């Protein structure tokens, strides 16, 4: 499933890379600890977090993640949006809490298989 389809299905906000949402989503990883994501996320996953500082884009890019989704209506720092554009990793957002968003995402990704 493409990032764009997830954006549409879950009505996500798009903070960056609006024109490049064609990355393939292979799954999801939910964590607010950067070392956890660094050590255990897998290529192509979307990362669900409430962290908003620019280092999340560094980690997402280094791990080749397909997108980052901020939960609970948290908005990204300007620097985070900038780095997202530079690295070409879309930064998305939702008003849902992590639990609910993960549930919905699991559901839509699950129907793909």
């Amino acid at each position: 499933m493409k990032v764009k389809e997830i954006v549409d299905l879950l009505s996500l906000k798009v903070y960056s890379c609006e024109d490049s949402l064609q990355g393939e989503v292979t799954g999801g990883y939910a964590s607010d600890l950067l070392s956890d994501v660094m050590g255990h996320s897998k290529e192509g996953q979307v990362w669900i977090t409430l962290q908003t500082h620019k280092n999340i884009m560094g980690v997402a890019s280094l791990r080749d993640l397909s997108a980052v989704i901020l939960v609970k209506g948290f908005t990204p720092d300007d620097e985070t949006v900038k780095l997202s554009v530079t690295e070409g990793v879309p930064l998305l957002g939702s008003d849902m809490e992590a639990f609910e968003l993960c549930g919905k995402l699991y559901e839509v990704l699950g129907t793909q298989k």
Partner: protein
Amino acid sequence: MQFEYKVEGGDFTQAGHASSQIKKSLKQLGVDSSVIKRVVVALYEAEVNIVAHAYRGVIYADIESTGIKLTLEDEGPGIPDVEQAMRKGFSTASHAVREMGFGAGMGLPNISENADNLSIETVVGKGTTLRIEIKF
């Protein structure tokens, strides 16, 4: 191929820069992607450790045909008990650093899991040198 990067303690805006540059170089060299992933994890964690704990440091990366050698020398507080620091979940990071999602006591264990060789030399009150080797 040799690279050198300076790292400033406390400057999280630049954290990950060296890892990103090395990742690009390894990709260009056609290094296996599973090996690149291991290098990136180990180097990123070591880089963040300097930012989070030390005053300043230098990263030396030496890419050879058989593997990569990373040396991270910092001027900082040193590690009083390396065995304890290697334990998952143990951390001396500040509250501010933890709030950013760093300092969860996973850095050194992540480095160790991804490196073929890891050595730590540390002097309390002076600094720490990490040597990480990953074979291609």
